[in-house]
């Protein structure tokens, strides 16, 4: 049994990453999950967050992904994201801009459903900021 997992991160514009990894942690819509070695077929939508790729040598690389889905099958793990780039290119200011935008959307929202959606969006970005700060990704 192979130990690693083949990971591909694809954005609409280009193939961001194609490599062998020891494990990959993915921000699924219903929580983080980690794929190691052969995994049962799974398909999950993504929420904005960081994908952590641990290469066979044990080094971690993070990628920021936004909107899309992850597909785990025999061939490995494929992440299709509307935006995907190395976390090092992703600054703190960007998350803060998103938070401001989400806050504005919440202020403008009318009706329960819209408010709930806007609040969820805002929380999502706030959590992401916390996470980015604690892991030292964004600066």
């Amino acid at each position, binding site marked *: 049994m192979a130990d690693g997992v083949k990971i*591909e991160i*694809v*954005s*609409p*514009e*280009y*193939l961001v990453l194609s490599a062998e990894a020891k494990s990959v942690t993915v921000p*699924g*819509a*219903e929580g983080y999950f980690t794929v190691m070695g052969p995994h*049962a*077929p*799974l*398909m*999950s*939508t993504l929420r904005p967050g960081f994908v952590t790729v641990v290469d066979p040598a044990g080094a971690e690389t993070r990628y920021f992904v936004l*909107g*899309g*889905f992850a*597909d785990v*099958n*025999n*061939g490995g793990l*494929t992440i*299709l994201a*509307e935006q995907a780039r190395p976390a090092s290119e992703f600054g703190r200011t960007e998350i803060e801009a998103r938070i401001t935008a989400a806050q504005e959307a919440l202020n403008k929202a009318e009706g329960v459903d819209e408010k709930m959606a806007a609040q969820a969006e805002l929380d999502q970005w706030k959590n992401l900021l916390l996470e980015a700060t604690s892991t030292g990704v964004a600066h």
Partner: protein
Amino acid sequence: MPSLKDLKNRISSVKSTQKITKAMQMVAAAKLRRAQEAAVAARPYAERMGQVLGGLSQAYEGRPDAPRLLAGTGQDQTHLLVVATGERGLAGGFNSSIARLAREHATRLLAEGKTVKILTVGKKGADILKRGLSKHIIEQISLREVKTLGYGTAQEIGEKVLAMYEAGEFDVATLYYARFSSVISQVPTAQQIIPAKFDAAEGDADARSGSAIYEYEPDEEAILEDLLPRSVSVQIFRALLENNASFFGAQMTAMDNATRNAGEMITKLQLSYNRQRQAQITKELIEIISGAEAL
């Protein structure tokens, strides 16, 4: 018969035209390479998306609870034609062949008593379709300010189309663009984007065969609903990239032809210039000799 001076002027003007077309050809060739790379780089995403959606949507075939983007509105009275062309001309038949395909379809739909709405992307398509179909054009999107074609551009167009669909402004959307098959051949293509149509998942079948049942998170329906709108943007993005590559391909071919024609023209003009010069010299000699003989 043009005079020697006229011929000389004409030759030099054709020469400068040739220089321009030659330069345009080289610029188009350089841009084509980049556009082609972009189109190739975008392929994996679109293909994976198509495979996954193909697999998912098969399960919903013919079911009444299928998402609207997949099942359609149940009628096909109002058609939206999204016509993607270039921003510039001088590319042979590139713009007009896309516009012609769109016009044919529009005319046929109108003859069947359907309502036609046209959304043009790129200035040239709008210019051509304005003749005869101007009252059907509902919006024109210009890509003139767009330097490098990014996903964001396609997303904006996609969201616009989706918003119109949500508002019930059309039932069927078709995208017109030129598929890039090679530098000398670009195929005008019509592709239906709403309701979504997918090829039966061919590649996906191998990946899935032997694998156990897929687990979906959140669930199949939610994933499908999340992906279908994205897929519209992805298809538009892909079409724009293909179009871009096709445009430069067509421009390159057109400019290559123009350069060759200019070369032929120069040879012909040069020939008649030389003949005339010779005739003139002969004439002058005769004049001198007969003058000398008369003495």
